[in-house]
């Protein structure tokens, strides 16, 4: 592979994540970008190009919303691109930024993700009605949670996983989120709280699900030579990977996310990681639902098939465990403004690798993996971040 420039992360920014924020999407983008610029000690003039990531326009209710958001993203009169792979967008956006810089085309690229899910009534779920195949699925009047429940149940059944083990993910992530300043749903809860919470779509209980949220996040990428001018502690985006599986999801076995494995292998190879469980010091897999964190840890090759629940129960994935997972608090705790939630994970990797994560800091953070997932359970996006050792 001919990668012209090594790509660094030099700044990150984020807003509050809440069920509803007064700021417009542009204004939220502005705040996240402004914080990222400030943390990198850069101005808008230092930015060569901008990549915007958002999930379905139907949440904000502004068709072609990336054009609407452009000025808030600091992209006026600059090369600007919108990238989109459903829920996988948040981790795909820095991959889009990576293309700009790794190719040698631009020295710097600002990556912004924004989501406002609050405008959609009666519920953001309503917007999801229109993602289904209109011929084979939509006449059945499906709710999006159906496919997650079906996938979760298949995963549990194939590996004989008790629900208690899966519920532990919510306990861990909501607990971790207590230390995240953006967090919407940080809380100290128990496994019983999860099991006794309302059944939404069996086997998914209310506390297995991340909330709908408004929020924005931003990340600044720079080529190695330029990054050194701004910081002594660049974080390296050394591996990127993405893959999509067939949209005929009822023709695949849902117990394992093969597409996440493909994406992870691509990213690990690029980052020269041969033994992921040994070499990865923490992970931020996508956790819109409790079981998804486990599913994705397996796809990311950080746990054997069916064994991620055990790691969680044994405390391996706790913030002070051998492999901290979602030290940020994840989507379950920090919130889920879809694309911004994925980019929040990459911001977390940046802060962890710079020792700037405060109370959330994991020990010996050398290599972090972030991953997102989405569409009709078909996309895996992966970024591997490292610091100078």
């Amino acid at each position: 592979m001919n990668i012209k420039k090594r790509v660094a992360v030099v700044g990150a920014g984020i807003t509050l994540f809440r069920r509803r924020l007064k700021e417009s999407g542009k204004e939220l983008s502005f705040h996240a970008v402004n914080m990222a610029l400030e943390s990198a000690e850069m101005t808008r003039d230092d930015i060569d190009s901008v990549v915007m990531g958002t999930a379905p326009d139907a949440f904000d209710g502004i068709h072609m919303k990336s054009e609407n958001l452009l000025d808030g993203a600091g992209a006026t009169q600059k090369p600007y691109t919108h990238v989109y792979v459903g829920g996988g967008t948040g981790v795909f956006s820095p991959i889009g930024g990576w293309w700009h810089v790794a190719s040698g085309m631009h020295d710097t690229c600002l990556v912004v993700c924004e989501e406002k899910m609050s405008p959609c009534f009666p519920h953001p779920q309503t917007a999801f009605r229109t993602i289904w195949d209109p011929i084979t699925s939509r006449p059945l009047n499906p709710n999006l949670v159906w496919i997650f429940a079906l996938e979760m149940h298949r995963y549990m059944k194939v590996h004989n996983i008790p629900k208690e083990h899966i519920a532990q993910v919510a306990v861990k992530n909501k607990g971790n989120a207590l230390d995240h300043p953006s967090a919407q749903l940080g809380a100290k809860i128990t496994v019983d709280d999860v099991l006794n919470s309302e059944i939404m779509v069996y086997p998914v209980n209310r506390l297995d699900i991340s909330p709908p949220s408004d929020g924005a996040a931003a990340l600044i990428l720079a080529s190695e030579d330029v990054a050194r001018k701004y910081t002594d502690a660049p974080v390296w985006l050394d591996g990127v990977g993405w893959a999509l599986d067939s949209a005929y999801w009822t023709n695949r076995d849902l117990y394992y996310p093969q597409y996440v494995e493909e994406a992870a292998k691509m990213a690990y190879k690029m980052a020269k990681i041969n033994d992921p469980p040994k070499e990865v010091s923490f992970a931020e897999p996508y956790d819109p639902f409790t079981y998804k964190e486990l599913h994705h840890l397996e796809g990311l090759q950080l746990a054997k098939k069916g064994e991620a629940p055990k790691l969680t129960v044994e405390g391996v994935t706790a913030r002070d465990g051998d492999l901290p997972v979602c030290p940020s608090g994840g989507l379950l705790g920090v919130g889920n403004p879809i694309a911004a939630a994925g980019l929040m994970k990459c911001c977390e990797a940046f802060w962890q690798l710079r020792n700037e994560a405060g109370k959330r800091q994991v020990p010996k953070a050398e290599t972090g993996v972030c991953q997102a997932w989405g569409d009709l359970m078909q996309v895996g996006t992966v970024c591997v971040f490292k610091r100078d050792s």
Partner: protein
Amino acid sequence: MSFDKIRDPRKLRHQIGHMECDYVYTAGVAGERFYLALREDGKLLATRCDKCNITYMPPRMYCDKCFAELTNYKEVPLTGIIESYTITYFDMDGEVLPEPLVLAFIKIDQTDGGLIHTVGNIKPESLKIGTKVKALFKDKAKRTGALTDIKCFQPA
């Protein structure tokens, strides 16, 4: 393909649907200041970036150029200049309007921006680019906090 001549998909095996969503948009921080001033005081508010010497109308929370946060709101005149206009004779569904409707981009005085609005109380044939116009407000009781709180712009 064999279906080239069929323009209406309903003549083929098909499924019908629509977007069932309703939306409620917040105006945002700067938008809210602007619309509250329209509704409550019948005033136009702009934001200003002194560094770039730009006065934003409608107001923005940040400067498009230097990306500074703008917190300096100032009242600007209700008058402006027609920068461009168009006359429409049909409504959104293609029906002929009872009266032609004049739509204009009005650059608001003492600002670097402007508003798209209707121009009333003027004969279409006497319209000119450069005509000075002034906002005519609805009665306060009828205002809702939207651009339509201005009934129209009319020759000043």
